[in-house]
């Protein structure tokens, strides 16, 4: 494996991890506030659909992004109503949201475009293009640093940079602001927030809304950044992987970066080496495809200790029984 190959694999990993990272951070806000969310998948899917539809209709990726966020937020609102306002079961609500998105996107897509749930392909401004960072081309020939800057760091869609910036931002918000303090508190012990005179409902809704926005960005990136339109079920389980990464990262933003990077990297490696020829035996593609999942289990069992979720997670806040 030469240097260029490593750069290419890392570059691929960065693209593959971006939707995971956004979704993972989305889940982080929600779960840190004590609202479990297995509906990340559904929100991303809905966002991918609305983003692609609006981007197609308007020819603007940015409007598509807004629509993606709106689509995802709509589902967030349902999740909030179910799990905060009506103190329902957060897991059931998440399952329902996944089903809802899976059905509605195709139903609406078929009604609007008649392509069996697909949207027409996006072109031009309807997609987020790749950004070339300043001096990327000039620096390309500098040994070592050049390729890293020009090929790995430069040349991604704006949403990739946004996703990476979200990591320090999330850290800062959670650990350096009043909002973050309250958010973490409401996920650990909502009664402490309530008795301090702060509304548990408002905080949790805020967290759920942020979750919706980030999922919306993740979905929009899938449909208008990485590909050029919506295809049914195009999230292909990424929401669940993001959830796994979140638990893996023990609900911490910087760890989330590494966890999603690991998933992206494993997938990129499996893409690059579809059949691993070990001389004696050739590992078949099925196993290379399953490799990221197998390695996750091994890493989890071997290196990551017990993951303790936010203490009030999954439980609706009930004052009066």
């Amino acid at each position, binding site marked *: 494996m030469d240097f260029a190959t490593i750069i290419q694999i890392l570059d691929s990993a960065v693209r593959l991890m971006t939707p995971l990272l956004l979704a993972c951070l989305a889940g982080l806000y929600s779960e840190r506030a004590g609202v479990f969310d297995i509906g990340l998948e559904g929100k991303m899917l809905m966002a991918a659909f609305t983003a692609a539809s609006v981007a197609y209709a308007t020819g603007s990726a940015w409007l598509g992004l807004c629509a993606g966020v709106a689509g995802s937020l709509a589902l967030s609102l349902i999740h909030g109503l179910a799990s905060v306002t009506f103190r329902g079961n957060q897991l059931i609500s998440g399952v329902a949201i996944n089903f809802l998105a899976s059905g509605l996107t195709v139903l609406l897509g078929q009604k609007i475009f008649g392509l069996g749930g697909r949207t027409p392909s996006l072109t031009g401004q309807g997609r987020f293009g790749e950004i070339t960072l300043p001096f990327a081309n000039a620096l390309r020939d500098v040994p070592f640093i050049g390729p890293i800057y020009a090929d790995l760091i430069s040349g991604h869609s704006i949403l990739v940079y946004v996703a990476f910036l979200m990591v320090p931002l999330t850290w800062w918000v959670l*650990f*350096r*602001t*009043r*909002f*973050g*303090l*309250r958010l*973490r*508190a409401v996920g*650990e*012990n909502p*009664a*402490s*927030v*309530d*008795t*301090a*005179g*702060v*509304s548990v409902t408002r905080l949790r809704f805020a967290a759920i809304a942020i979750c919706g926005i980030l999922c919306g960005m993740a979905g929009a990136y899938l449909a208008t950044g990485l590909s050029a339109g919506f295809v049914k079920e195009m999230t292909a389980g990424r929401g669940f992987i993001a959830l796994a990464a979140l638990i893996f990262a023990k609900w911490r933003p910087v760890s989330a970066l590494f966890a999603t990077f690991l998933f992206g990297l494993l997938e990129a490696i499996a893409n690059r080496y579809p059949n691993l020829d070990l001389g004696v035996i050739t590992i078949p593609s099925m196993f290379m495809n399953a490799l990221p999942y197998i390695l996750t289990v091994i890493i989890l069992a071997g290196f990551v200790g017990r993951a303790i979720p936010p*203490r009030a997670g999954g439980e609706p806040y009930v*004052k*009066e*029984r």
Partner: protein
Amino acid sequence: MTHAGDMPGGRPDEAAPAAIELRGISKAFGPVQANKDISLRVPKGTIHGIIGENGAGKSTLMSILYGFYKPDAGEILVNGTSLTVTDSQTAIRAGIGMVFQHFKLVQNFTVLENVILGAEDGPLLRPSLARARGVLKQLAAEYELNVDPDEVIEELSVGHQQRVEILKALYRQADILILDEPTGVLTPAEADHLFRILRGLKDEGKTIILITHKLREIMAITDNVSVMRRGEMVGSVQTAQTSPEELAELMVGRKVLLNVGKTPARPGAPVLEIRDLTLVDEDGVERLRGIDLDIRAGEILGIAGVSGNGQTQLLEILGGYPEKGSTVSGRLSLNGRELPLGGRGCDGAERRRQGIGHIPEDRQSEGLIMDFTAWENTAFGYHHAPECNRGPLMDNAAILADAEAKMERFDIRPRNAHLAARNFSGGNQQKIVVAREIERNPDLLLIGQPTRGVDIGAIEFIHRRIVELRDAGKAVLLVSVELDEILSLSDRIAVMFDGRIMGERLPGQTTTGELGLLMAGISDTENTPDSAGIPPETKHVEDLSPQGPA
């Protein structure tokens, strides 16, 4: 409606300006009427006690005042002006602070973070934290409320956690401080310290409402006292005009024996022998250091000590579930048979089979499954016993019948075995555990904090049962941080400090002062009693009420 006038003794001063006035407060939780048309007047600058049985509605009333619950009816006046308390924020702004019975702290936050939560100065934390650090230092100096601001709550003892709660209220500049059973989890020394602080606060003109089950505390520190029963306010009276016996009767509705009458013990052969018991926990800290103890048939061995000195670990080992990741060494033998200290055969079920009953320190997380019904809980830990089973299945009918009989005998209220444990009040929850463990007639009963948070009626009842068990020739190991409890129940007292037995004493031949020194780790000199030179009762009265109206 019942008026204070029904009470013996004088009414609180009606003329003094009221810090708080409640009028006709009612509150129902579904079908449970927790507060019925309650009125209460608390004069400014006084300490006002509220007493009542478990479930009488004390906490509910205070939570309403603090804006935590919304009342169904009624009016709240603070400093004479009517206040619609919609949430805790309005209460806080009106100068009310509350320390809840179950602390409302975020376990993995630091002290500082807990203190500023909800009272931050701006959108960014740094300035708030800096200011709070300063204020905390000042408060610490002023009231001797020392806690490390950077310590994480879960690392703190309950006593310190409570200080944090008080600091929270003071940081919000509360003029009216509500404390709901603050001494339930405190050691005597900590309680004394708390009362000193409260007196200091009162001297500054602050008003304090204190809920407690301990009449001694009421007598020692309050100016006035109100009694609640079954959701109603039975009345209010000046403390100086009443007596503990009178209050106890008012509270429970019958005469209560405040002291267990018990005959001297007739100890038999040793039931449990503990030899050189040592425990090193996960982090390599030695929590038990060579414990040697004998517990004989027909005696109650009391273990006194400030909590956190190894009592919990000792009970857990005896109960068959030593702390995860710890290493235990030494020897245990029960009636001459060796008990394993780990691995196979060392679990709670096996210990029960050997004849060890166990009333755990924490009834809510260990002793009961809160979501199980009362009847299911009466078989908890004994679900393998033949009488609970018929063939491969559990004999639910038999368990239920047994549970109902137990509820009758132990007067557990409400008398509904199908209710989930969490719907019983603390005292009744404790009775469920006590009934389960005592009625099995174990050879050895381990008891941790049997009366924590339990009202005096129930305390009396539980104490009597423990003595009866002893009189039936069984061995009892009693762990409690309540010195009074230890002194009045035990036949022999061992004091634990830092994982060691500091010494053994006989209750009749020692004093709280001597025990206190042992508890503080001041070593076992010769058997010279009276190291502080003050007899037990006097010492407490001295400590609690320098003004001494009683």
